[in-house]
Structure formats: C-alpha cells, structure tokens
C-alpha cells in the first residue's frame, strides 16, 4: 500500500540508491563480537560461512554475520516498519561476551557494505559506480540510521583498534541522508532498493527474537497457502502490484464507508422521523381508509346476501362435477390395466443392456493395460534414477572437464610420466658413476690408474703427479693451468725411469715425470720456493720439475712461453691433492643424488597428475553416461506422460461406457419398478372412487341448509341491486362475506390504529375515541363485537382526522424536503462507490491475469528446477480467488506447491506429510523458482542459517550443487552458515569460504576471519585489494609466493 504513496512522495527523496548493484564486500564495527576485518563477498553461487569458536564451530558469530548481511539487504524479517528494534540485539553486548565485569556495552555499531555494478568488469567502471552503504545501529530508537557514499568509503587502519576507532569519525563526515536527519529503518528498503525484495533469509533464533513464517525459515508445510503466495509475491514483485490494488480497495472502502455512513445517517434519521412520519402516514392512510371502510361495510351486506344465492348455485354444480369425476376414475383404472399388459414383454431393452456391458469391459481392459505399462516404466525409471545418482556422484570429480579434455589431459600426463621415468633412470645412472668416482678418488686410483697398476706390478714405486703436488689455494689460478698438461702423469724416481718406460711400453701416451730421490727438508724448502706448488711430503721430490715448469710459464694462462702453450684454468675443485679430489668427487655425487631426488619428485607429481587425470576421465565418462541416463529418464518420463495422456484420453470413453452400462442397468430396474408402481396406482384409484361417492352424499345435505331470506333483509334491497353494487367494485367482487366482515373491521381498525397505534398512551386519544377504543374494548374485542362498533367508530374517527389534517401536511412537506436532500447525498456517495468499485474491479481483473501469468512462470521454473535437481517434477496450484466481499477484506491469493513423491506418480500437495529434508529442498527450489520467474535481473540474496540441517550426504551434495548452479545461471547469491559436518560439501560448491574465528572465551572480539575464495571478476578483487590487505601483512612465509 505504501508503494503508490512512496512513488508519489518519493519523487523528491532518494529512491533505489543501490539499485542493481550487488554486495561485494562487507565490514562491521561493534556488531556482536565480530572483528572489523573486511570480508569480500562473491556474487552468484554459494558463499560458505563457517565458524571456529573456542570449542566447536559455535560461538564464532556466524549467525550474527549473516544476520548483518540480511539487515544490510533490508530483509523484512527485521520488522523495519516498527524501527527494527531487533537490530539493536546485534550490537556488541558485554554480558553476552562475558565481559560485563570490566567493560560496558557499545551503544552503536556499523554495518558497512560495498555495492558494485554487476556488469562492471574494469577497475575504472567499478570504481565509478560503486556505492558504500553505512548502517549505523543504535541501541535505542531510532535503531537504524542510514547514510551512503559514492565509491569505496571504508575504514582502513593498521589494527582493529584503528579501524574501530575511525568508524565514528567517518560516519560523522558522511552527509545526513534525509535532510536534517537520517533515514531510519522504515525507509531502508525504499531508499536502498526501491522496495524490491533483495533478500530471503532464514536466520536462527539466536539473533531473531521471534520466529516468523517465511519460506526458508519454517518447514514448508507449516505455511498456509496464502503465506506461500505472499512470499512468492514479495520475491516476484507482485506485492507492489497488490499494494496498488489494496490502495484502490482502500479508496473503495472510503467510498463505501461514506455510503454506509450516509445510509446509516439516513436510516437513523428515518427511524427518528418514523415516529412523526408514521403518524402522518397513518393519518393520511386513515383518511383514505375511512371512506373505504364505510364503503366496505355497505358492500359487506350486499355480499352477504349474494353469498347465499351463489352458494346454493355452487353446490349444485359441484354435485355435477363429482359425478363426472367418478366416471373418469373408472376409465383411468381401465388404462392402468392396459399399461400393465404392455410392460410385460420388451426384447429390445435386453439387447441394449448386453451391448453396454460388453463395451464397458473392453475399455476397462485397455485402461488396465496402459496402467501396467506405466508401472513397468516407473520401475525402470526408479532403477535409472538410482543409477543416475551413482553416476552423478562419480562425476563429481570432473573439475569441469569433459571426456575429451580429460582424455587429452590424461595422455599428456602419461607422456609426462614416461618422460619423468626416463629422466629418473638417467639421473640414477649418473649417480652410480659419481659414487664410483668417490671410491676411486679415495683410493687415489682416479688418475693414471692403468699406468700405476703396471708400475706396481713392475715393482716401480710411482704416484700420480697430482697426488704428489699440492697447490696452495691462492696459487691455484697460476699453478693449475701449468700442471694441467701433466694431469695424467705419473711420478717415478729418476732412477726408476728406465724400468718405468719398459713397464709402460704397451701403454702409449703415458707421461712420466722423473723425480729426484726423496730429499730432506731443503727439498721442501725448495718446493716452497717454487712459487706455491709444493709436493706432498711423499717419497718424490719434484722441485726440479716444478721449477722448470714455473720457469717456462709466462703471463696469464701461458704455461709454456717458449712453446707458446696456453691452458685455460678456473677449475671449481682443486685438481691437485687427493683430499681435494675426493671432495670434488663427493660433491659431484651429491649433485647427482639431488638430481635423482628431483627426478623422483617430478615422477611423483607426474603420477599424481596422472591419477587426477585418470579420475577426471573416469568422472567425465560417468558424467557422459549420466547424461545418457538422464536423457533415457527423460524419454521414459515422456513415454509415461504419453501413456498417462492416453489413459486420460481413454478415461472419458470409459466413463461414458460406464454411464451407458449404468443407464441400461437402470432401465431394466426401472421397468420392474414401474410395473409395481402401476399396481399401486390401481389400488389408489379404487380407494378415491369410494371417497368421491361419499362426498356426493354430504354436499346434497349442505345445499338444503342455506337461509336466503334473512340476508336479503340486511342488505335492504333486492339481490339484483346487490349484484349491481358489487359488479361495480372490480376485483373486490370476489370477496366473501366473512372477508367483507374482516375487511370492514380491519379498515376501521386501521383508521383507528392510524390515528392512535396500540402503544399510544390513552391520554392522547380524544375522550370519545378513548371511550370507544378502550372502554368499549374495540382493540381486544372479538370480530362480532367489532362488527357492532364499526359504524359509531367510523363517525368518531372522521372528526379526529379532520382536526389534524393541516398540521400533518406541513410536517410532511418538511420531511420530504429533508429526505430528498439526504437521499441525494446518499446517491452521490453511491455513485462514488460504484466508480471506485469499477476501478478496483477493472484493476483486479488485469492484475489477476498478471498474477496468474507470473505464477504459471514460477510453476514452470519450479518444475524445471525440481527435475534438474533430483526431483520428479513439481508444480503450483493457484486458483483465482474471489474478489473480496467487502473492500477492506483482503484479496487473498493462495499458492499450493505440489510435487511428485516418486517417479510417475501424480503430484500431491505440499501439505502431505513428508520428511523435513524434502520440505527444505522444495522450499529452496520454490524460492529460487520465484526469483528466476520475476525476470529482470535484480540480484537476490538467499541467507540460510544451518545450511544442510536435516540433510543426508547425498542431499547435501544436491543442495549445494543446486545453490551453485542456480547462482551461476542467475543473479542469485546464496550465503549459508553451517556446522563442521557440512563444511566440506559446501566448500566444494562455493565461490567463497569464510570462516569466523575466536579461539578463547576470554577474548572479547573475534580474530581475523579466514577467507578463501575466487572471484572471476578480477576488477572487483582489485577494487577491494587495498582495503583487504593494507593492514594485513600476514605471515609471508605461510602465504608463500
């Protein structure tokens, strides 16, 4: 009702500020124990809100959080018209937080919502169109203040304390929304959302003090059909149309009240006037009647005479009639006898009866056949549905791949795995080689192995040059290149040179460095002088060699200036000295081992990837099969429906056959009855005959008893004169004497009553009349007494009536004038009412077709959703209600949801008992169907506390899948708060996962909430990025890249 007004009044004020924008982020300050951290909100699909309190998932403020969301969307559950006093219960309350011993309540808190245009995908677009809505909740009236700001206007801050502290200041700097004050709760829906329903919520009782009926909040079958219509009307926007209708009816009612008032006024006035007017009217009537009464008296006497004459004549004619009728009865008895004879044989009837029976049996057979087919198909469907459910379950892990993609991914994964296996083998070989290298280095067998073996066999002491020489680290750059050409050389004592040559004769390319016999310290000193390259303190003295090498070397990498040889250095490990070479070998090995590890890890990853891919392929196949099964189900259903249609088609024929059969059966029975009836009739006729004969005798006696002479005397003239007199009377000729007596007395009495009704106090009568009426007991006397008084009374009345005539006329005129005026008022009012009725009726008619169209659409969506998500089909019944009998009675529409409880069954109404889970599921589908049917693309937020309560595992999956799919396909966001056991199912279908946290009962406020989610609209992520992160450095290590 307020719509029309607000539309009119709302032209000046802000209206529908948020419009089509959707909530993308929310922040609360001093609401329950919630932290002030902003929380992003994804749109379309499911948002999961979980909790982690000190003991379990309770106590973390889930309910308060979703309650805040519903308030932000102006959910009517908050009883906005009366100021939403319940909102104050959302405020932080010290007692509830167990903080009352030290701290107080807050007296205000904030709900801050960031709303963005759904279509905006670039950061600029978003930033331009974003609106930040601030609701300030107060602990006392007005409970809600509303302000808003274009763009992102939110409290930033390094810490909770900063953010909470800034909120007040930011609020103050917002302009007042409604001139000198702010808009309050009663304007919330209008100002923010143009009175469109944006939110349907089921909030748990912990935050809502009184539970009220709502599609989601209550088991569906607890709601009356009319409330279901209300809910659908709100969701589809029909409520505004209906409001308009109500406004028209209100107008109608106003007119009606005017009419009723005018009528009552007139009636009261009439009643008041009645005393006066009745008197006048009675007297006018009395004046007219008086003449008539006198006339009547005269006529009476005439009639009395003629009566006697007539009566005699009449009796005579009746006697004649009687004798005729006796003859007729005798003839009738003969007729009955004839009919009885005719009814005894009738072959045609028997034949018709047999044919009808046969036809009926044939049709019954066909119907049973169809029914059997239907049953069989139904069983088949049952099996397929179970299969479909298994397949859908198996198909859960597709992660969005179809079979082809999954196969391709699987092949890729396989190739990757093979490659990883190969790589792993190579790495392992390398590692083995490296391990041998260490052993060799440790044994010193890594250089000139062959040569040294030969020399050992030959008994020539020898060592590898690199083992003998050790280069100081700082000399490695100069010495290592110099020694490189001799890297594979062996050292023998100069004395052994010849033997060595012989021993190595068949090893061409062997290099032998001849050493001086092992010297003393000076040798070491010499070696030391050889610019850093020292021999090992072994048995060989290479100082000469080293000196020579050193001598030949030139600048930079030139190792032999004379020969012009240049060796490139820069070895990572020292090439001289065994220890260092062992180290080098080990390092090499380690590298190889690491490579093997890497390869194995890669191998594991590849295996895992292959697993995933394979499971996706399986799932995808299952999905394909599910599709196949689904279409098979659809075909079967189709076939069933056709069968049902044929049955339905058959039904009238069958009914007709039944009718024919029943009729023929009836014909047969009725013939028997008729025979019996005729016999009865005959008996009755005979009885009548004897009665008539008796009456004839009686009438003959009566005719002899009339005395005509006395009557002629009373009239005082001849019967002919009496006849003449009466014949001039018209209709009254037919009156009898008793009637004339009656009539004359009645007329006279009417004149008397007209002058003085029986209730009149005797004082008011004239003495003469009192004498006549009271003393002589006219009123109470018998007819006989009255007949005697008629003449004198007529005389007295005449005198009285002449007296009052003038006065009466005057009053009557006055009354007539007034009546005309009042009647005119009333007709004017009635005209107004008729017009108002007309308008209301016309509007109602067009509205009714609109409502039916909308409900048909909702019904279709309901059916579609139901079949898509595990149901067997559903629909809505919505009979058009009668227009209200009185304009202030509501025009009450009802909607009865119905659905099939099993495959192929007829739909049954929702009131039929059913399990709670199914009720909840249908309720959600109905809400979604209504939201989908309303068209346009106004976003809708469904808020469900204790999502998935009462549901089994399979239903949980289906329910969340339903939310996700509906959300993705349409502009619906479902926010569900849930317990631990539901969490995993919900996350699987969610776009956003929010977990509110508070670890200890001693903490006044929550900790930072957990947020995991993804928004494909990257611009929104970007928009909120700074808000969400500026003060959330977090733990970099835990967050990783």
């Amino acid at each position, binding site marked *: 009702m307020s719509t029309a007004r607000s539309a009119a009044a709302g032209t000046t004020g802000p209206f529908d500020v948020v419009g089509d924008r959707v909530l993308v982020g929310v922040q609360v300050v001093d609401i329950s124990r919630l932290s002030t951290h902003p929380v992003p909100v994804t749109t379309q699909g499911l948002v999961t809100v979980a909790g982690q309190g000190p003991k379990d998932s309770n106590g973390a403020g889930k309910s308060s959080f979703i309650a805040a969301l519903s308030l932000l969307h102006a959910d009517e559950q908050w009883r906005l018209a009366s100021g939403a006093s319940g909102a104050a219960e959302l405020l932080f309350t010290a007692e509830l937080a167990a903080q009352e011993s030290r701290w107080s309540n807050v007296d205000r808190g904030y709900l801050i919502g960031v709303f963005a245009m759904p279509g905006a995908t670039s950061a600029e677009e978003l930033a331009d169109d974003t609106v930040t809505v601030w609701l300030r909740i107060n602990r006392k009236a007005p409970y809600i203040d509303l302000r808003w700001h274009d763009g992102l206007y939110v409290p930033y801050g390094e810490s909770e304390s900063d953010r909470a502290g800034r909120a007040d200041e930011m609020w103050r700097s917002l302009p007042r929304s409604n001139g000198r004050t702010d808009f309050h709760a009663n304007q919330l829906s209008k100002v923010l959302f143009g009175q469109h329903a944006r939110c349907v919520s089921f909030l748990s009782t912990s935050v809502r003090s*009184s539970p009220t009926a709502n599609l989601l909040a209550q088991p569906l079958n607890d709601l009356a059909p009319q409330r279901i219509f209300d809910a659908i009307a709100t969701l589809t926007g029909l409520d505004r149309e209906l409001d308009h209708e109500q406004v028209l*009816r209100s107008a109608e009612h106003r007119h009606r009240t005017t009419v009723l008032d005018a009528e009552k006024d007139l009636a009261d006035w009439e009643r008041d006037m009645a005393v006066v007017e009745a008197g006048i009217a009675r007297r006018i009537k009395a004046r007219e009647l008086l003449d008539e009464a006198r006339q009547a008296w005269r006529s009476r006497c005439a009639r009395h005479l003629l009566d006697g004459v007539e009566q005699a004549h009449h009796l005579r004619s009746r006697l004649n009639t009687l004798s005729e009728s006796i003859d007729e009865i005798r003839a009738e008895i003969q007729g009955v006898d004839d009919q009885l004879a005719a009814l005894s044989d009738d072959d045609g009837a028997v034949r018709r009866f047999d044919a009808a029976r046969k036809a009926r049996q044939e049709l019954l057979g066909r119907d049973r056949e169809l029914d059997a087919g239907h049953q069989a198909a139904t069983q088949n469907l049952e099996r397929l549905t179970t299969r479909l459910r298994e397949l859908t379950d198996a198909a859960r892990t597709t992660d969005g791949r179809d079979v082809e993609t999954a196969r391709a991914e699987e092949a890729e994964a396989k190739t990757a795995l093979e490659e990883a296996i190969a790589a792993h083998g190579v790495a392992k070989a390398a590692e083995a080689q490296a391990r041998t290298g260490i052993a060799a280095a440790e044994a010193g067998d890594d250089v000139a192995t062959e040569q040294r073996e030969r020399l050992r066999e030959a008994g020539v002491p020898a060592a590898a040059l690199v083992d003998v020489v050790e280069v100081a680290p700082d000399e490695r750059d100069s010495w290592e290149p110099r020694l490189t050409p001799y890297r594979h050389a062996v050292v023998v004592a100069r004395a052994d040179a010849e033997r060595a040559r012989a021993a190595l004769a068949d090893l061409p390319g062997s290099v032998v460095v001849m050493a001086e016999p092992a010297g003393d310290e000076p040798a070491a000193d010499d070696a030391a002088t050889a610019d850093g390259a020292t021999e090992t303190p072994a048995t060989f003295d290479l100082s000469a060699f080293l000196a020579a090498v050193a001598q030949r070397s030139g600048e930079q990498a030139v190792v032999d200036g004379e020969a012009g040889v240049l060796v490139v250095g820069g070895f990572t490990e020292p090439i001289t000295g065994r220890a260092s070479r062992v180290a080098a070998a080990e390092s090499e090995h380690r590298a190889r081992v690491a490579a093997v590890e890497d390869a194995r890890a890669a191998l594991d990853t590849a295996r895992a990837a292959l697993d995933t891919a394979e499971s996706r392929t399986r799932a995808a196949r299952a999905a394909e099969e599910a599709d196949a099964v689904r279409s098979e189900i659809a075909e079967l259903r189709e076939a069933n429906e056709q069968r049902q249609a044929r049955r339905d088609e058959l039904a009238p024929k069958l009914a007709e056959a039944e009718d024919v059969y029943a009729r023929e059966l009836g014909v047969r029975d009725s013939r028997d009855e008729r025979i019996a009836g005729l016999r009865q009739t005959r008996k009755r006729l005979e009885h009548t005959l004897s009665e008539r004969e008796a009456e004839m005798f009686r009438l003959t006696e009566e005719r002899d008893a009339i005395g005509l002479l006395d009557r002629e005397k009373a009239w005082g003239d001849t019967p002919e004169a009496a006849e003449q007199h009466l014949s001039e009377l018209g209709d009254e000729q037919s009156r009898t004497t008793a009637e004339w007596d009656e009539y004359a007395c009645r007329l006279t009495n009417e004149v008397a009553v007209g002058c003085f009704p029986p209730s009149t106090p005797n004082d008011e009568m004239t003495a003469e009349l009192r004498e006549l009426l009271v003393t002589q007991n006219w009123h109470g006397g018998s007819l006989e007494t009255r007949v005697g008084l008629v003449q004198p009374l007529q005389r007295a009345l005449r005198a009285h009536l002449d007296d009052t005539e003038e006065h009466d006329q005057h009053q009557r005129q006055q009354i007539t004038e007034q009546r005309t005026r009042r009647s005119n008022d009333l007709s004017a009012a009635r005209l107004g009412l008729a017009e108002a009725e007309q308008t209301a009726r016309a509007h109602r008619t067009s509205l009714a077709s609109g409502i039916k169209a909308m409900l048909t659409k909702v019904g279709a969506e309901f059916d579609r959703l139901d079949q898509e998500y595990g149901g067997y089909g559903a629909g809505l019944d919505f009979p058009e209600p009668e227009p209200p009998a009185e304009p202030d009675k*509501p025009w009450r529409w009802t909607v009865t949801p119905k659905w099939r409880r099993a495959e192929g069954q007829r739909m049954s109404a929702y009131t039929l008992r059913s399990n709670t889970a199914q009720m909840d599921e249908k309720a959600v589908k109905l809400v979604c169907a209504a939201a989908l049917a309303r068209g346009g693309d106004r976003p809708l937020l469904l808020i469900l506390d204790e999502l998935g309560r009462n549901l089994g595992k399979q239903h949980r999956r289906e329910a969340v899948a339903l939310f996700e799919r509906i959300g993705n396909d349409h502009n619906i966001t479902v926010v569900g708060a849930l317990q631990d056991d539901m969490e995993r199912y919900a996350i699987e279908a969610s776009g956003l996962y929010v977990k509110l946290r508070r670890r200890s009962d001693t903490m006044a406020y929550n900790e930072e909430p957990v947020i995991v989610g993804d928004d494909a609209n990257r611009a929104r992520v970007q928009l909120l990025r700074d808000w969400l992160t500026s003060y959330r450095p977090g733990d970099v290590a835990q967050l990783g890249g």
Partner: protein
Amino acid sequence: MTATTDGQHPVFGPVLSELNERHRDEVLTAFAAVEHGRDPVPEAQLAALRDATLRRHLRRLLDRVGRTLVQVGNGHWTSGYADDVAARLSAEGWQPLPAIDRAVLVLVLVHSVAIPRSQGLLSGDSWTSAHPTSADELVRYAQLPRGEIRPALQRLRAAGLVQSAPWRGRGPDTGTAYLPGPALNRLTPSARQRLEHQLILAAAPESPLAASIRAKQAASEHTDGDR
C-alpha cells in the same frame, strides 16, 4: 516478556499468521501507536491506519484484547474499549476508578464541556475542550470532601483523563485549572453519546430531554431484546 513455545502469540497469533512479514509489522506498529500513544495518531503516519485492509486486521487485533478502533476527527485514530466489553465489565461491577475520581472527572466535564455547550461556546462531537475548569470550582463550590480532590486530580492526570491548563478565566480564581484529558478521545461514538445521556439524566432527570432519552433507551433495549 515470555516467549511462547510455539512461537505464536496466543492472542495475536491467529490474526497475525494471515499476514506477511511487512504487513504484520505495520499492523503491530499501528497497534502499539493507538494503544500506547497519548494522542490520536494521524493516519498519514502509519500504513495500517491508512489502508482499509490492514485497518481491518488492526481492528481484529484490538478486538482480541477487548478494544476497538476509534476515529477522532478526520484521519486520526486511537483505540478504546469495545462497547460490548465495557458493558460486560460494568455488568460485573468492574470499576477501578474510585468514586471521588469519577466525581471530579464529571465536574470537569460539566464545567469544561457541558456548560460551554449550553453557552454556545463549544460545538462538535467531542469530549475534549479548551475551556478550563478552575481548581477553585472543584474545591470550593462542589460538595466533595476537600482533602481528596487533589489526589484524585493527580490520579486522573496520570491516567490522561484530565490535563492541567492555565486558568485564564475571570474572577479571583488563580492557580491551576483542568481540562478533559486526551484519554477522553478514546471513547467510542456510542460511549460518547452514552456519556452525554447519562450526564443529562443525572443533571436534569425531570426534563423532557431526559424523558426522551429514557424512551429511546427503552426502545433500543426492546429491539435488542427482539434480536
């Protein structure tokens, strides 16, 4: 405030359950406004007063607690006792207002409403008035126990049956004066008329006016009996 177990208020529930969320809210708000408000509420302010359908529900709600809607002037509403409920209470002998309070209230009505009407200073069909009754009139001239008058006036004021007004009249009377209070707006049309009749019957029982009233009462009782 106790919560009922099934969530439905035993008195209001049956009426409210027919309404949707918003209408329920509007009806209850209007209920609160007319029941608890001091003065009649303008219908422009509340949807449930403006709209005939909702008003009907409001009326039903009030009916459940023995009350009824009373229209005051054009477009203002308040609530009062339903005539039948008041009649039944009276039949039980229910009268919580002490005799002295009633006597004082009647005096205020006589001086502030009846006499100004006889003088032609007051028109309209209402028991409110702008003609104050001086405290002196009550204390000095009336045959009431002096000491009980002021406490009675205090009680009447607390109940909204009289209100204080400055005494602007002539004569030596000074200090406070009293007017009929806003609670008199709560009288239903028939109660307003009955009050008038009873006042006339009491003040001038022998007048033909009284006789005419008695005759009408007898007549209406008679027709009531027939029904």
